[in-house]
């Protein structure tokens, strides 16, 4: 997949994003950082950790911490249901982590001219957005994963 992706980037300057939903908002996560997307597994709570850490899950024999994007963004806590997914993020220099999202919608291709830098949105949930992508008349907030991981480390 990585190869396919890089050819895309090189030839069309397109970046693929997975579009997820948190509340009514759409967020985009660069597909190259996504290792896996899993349905809600059993989460083991870990005591005495910040509220945005929901616990740990067993991903094929690996123990992976799971965080809540909602709580991190200052929104209401998650209410897991059948659409809830955990997105497993693997970024160089960071350990793997799962992010709980309300649902996963689709994969989109965005070229650089379809992305706008952030305005001065002062809402807390906007703090982790590094740009806005336009797609099919809708807006997708592109998440700054690096900033999130830095903060929670």
């Amino acid at each position, binding site marked *: 997949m990585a190869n396919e992706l890089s050819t895309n980037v090189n030839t069309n300057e397109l970046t693929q994003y997975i579009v997820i939903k948190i509340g009514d908002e759409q967020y985009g996560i660069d597909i190259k950082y996504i290792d896996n997307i899993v349905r809600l597994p059993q989460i*083991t709570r870990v005591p*005495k950790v910040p509220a945005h850490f929901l616990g740990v899950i*067993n991903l094929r024999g690996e123990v992976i911490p799971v965080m809540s994007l909602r709580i991190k963004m200052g929104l209401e806590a998650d209410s897991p249901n059948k659409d809830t997914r955990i997105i497993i993020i693997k970024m160089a220099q960071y350990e793997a982590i799962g992010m709980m999202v309300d649902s996963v919608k689709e994969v989109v291709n965005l070229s650089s001219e379809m992305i706008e830098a952030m305005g001065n949105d002062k809402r807390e949930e906007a703090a982790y957005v590094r740009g806005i992508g336009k797609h099919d008349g809708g807006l997708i907030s592109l998440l700054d994963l690096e900033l999130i991981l830095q903060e929670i*480390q």
Partner: protein
Amino acid sequence: MDVSQYLDIFLDESKEHLQNLNTSVLNLEQDAENPETIGEIFRSAHTLKGMAGTMGFKRMQTLTHDMENVFSEVRDGNLKINAGMIDVLFRCLDALEEYVSIIQETSDEGDNDNEPIIKELNDILASKGSEDAAAKEETAAKPAAAENTAASTSFWSGRELTEEEQKSMEDAMMANKKIYAVTVYVEENCLLKAARAFLVFKAIEENSEIIAADPSTQDIEDEKFDLQFSLIISSEGELEPVLTAIKGVSEIADAKGGLFDADSIGESVDSTETAAPEEKQEEAVTEAVAPVTAPVTIEAPKKAEEKKAPAKTGGEKKSGKPAVGRSVRVDIEKLDSLMNLVSELIIAKNSLVSGATNAGENSGALHDQIEYLESVTTNLHESVMKVRMVPIESVVSKFPRMIRDISKQLNKPMELFMSGEETELDRTVVDEIGDPLMHMLRNSADHGLEMPDVRIARGKPESGSIYLDAYQDGNNVVIEVRDDGNGIDVNAVREKAIERGVMTEEQANNADDSDIINLLFLPSFSTAKKVSDLSGRGVGLDVVKSKIEALSGEVDVKTKLGEGTTFTIRLPLTLAIIQALMVVVGGEKYAIALSGITTIENIEPSEVKTVQSKEVINLRGNVIPLVRLDEVLDIESTRDPASSMVVVIAKKGEKLAGLVVDELIGQQEIVIKSLGKYINKCKFISGATILGDGEIALIIDTNALI
């Protein structure tokens, strides 16, 4: 092929030889006349020189060469060991260590010529009369040359040369080069024959060319040869330097050669000559030696002795070596992956067990097989663990030298006594334990031991003693660093704590001595009155503690003012797989390491007493503080508060604590998985484990709760 792939072997072996040299020189300081020690040093230095030369590290080679020269004279009785010389030798070893560490980092030896040391070494040599030495060296070389060049074609195996080989030989002869035949003998216990052979080729190719080889070079590189191989080489120079270079490669037993006579090939095919080249050469040697040594008859008896000595030590080496010969060097990463696989297997086994139970399978045969599988996986785990175990000797062997240096530097007589160097620990732990131990020893040497006048005034022997004792205690390895020095002045620490605002005066006065001593493990808490070069820079015991805790170990101090201090380090034998007690608290499953548990008790709520607003129980005369795990873990207990409680009695050193749980599940072998960097802030959760049904249970670190 290039030489860099042997860099790791070179580094490993150089370190071993340097360690060996350090130990030997230290012994020499005590027993200057011991011929065995001197021989040992000479051999190590010689091998080191050869290896450095082969790898192309000229500066290192030069320095070792000069050191070897000094020992050569010592061995021959022309020089006496004295204190000044030992110091120079140690500086020389330090310089060599520096080369090795620079090589390790940059693959290059750097550009420090260490001229002052070389000069000092040469001064030592000069001190006994340089003419004498030169004369001797020359005469020593001559018979050797005769020995090696005496016999002729028998050094070639007898294989007929191919056309190409013939041609390149003729070309070489046309170019006025000499053609030599050489047979190289590899030591019987040599582990990496191909690598050694390659180094031999490399050494030869420095100033000669290889025309033919038997077996072929390809076969030699593929290790398809026995203990020897023959070569035909062409060179403009003499054969002797080439042979010396070959012998400089480690694990090469010998190299012999002579002028090659192309016509003899056909004749020597009758295998008698090749089958017993050793004997033939022996004869040739004695014949050859006689005429050369004749003019220097007075030297002759000595020479004979000299010859005997290496032969004898060679024999000793052989008899002691088989154990080494049966071992294999394995990359630690391969062992890690093997260990991971074993872990996976144990998880799979646990799943199978819980699967069979859930399926309500009652077949006796199935249970027998599962039990069998359990015993196999447990044994497998133990075996893999044992493979990963190495004696702590590799780290502690450098300490005597360190203590000696400190003793000189501080002008404080002291001695280090070590025991249990053979105690084994997991390789990863051994690699990490060196620094903390070194720090504790320095601490003892610098702060612990008093100056000699104080010691005498206190009626202690003038020379201080530091002990390092290691031993296995159940599932733990204990390392004790003990000194008979001043001990820790608890009141001084107490004052310091108040002064630094670590504790209020009231707190400090109420705290007991052991709590106060534990303050020493806080960052930047040094009581040294003056900051010395050795320790007391405020980084120290806290680093020791965190390092040991990172290895799942613990450190403890006992001290008596005026009598001494003992630091006790306790480390788990294994880090990956443990026996654990599974418990339930508030509906969640947790694992507690079995090694930290003494007993499990049923306690009636009425037996719980309150002392200083803390809950305690009285168990067979011991007052034990109670820890309610539900409160610690922020969860609601599901147990009826009026019913009797299940209390797990955990111990840490001599301290006990009772952990209240809701329910016991039983004992289980678990694989420890890290929780990762994000959520390791919780002090009393040391990791997680995956249970048979895929669920994750957290592991409670009882040490953090006591």
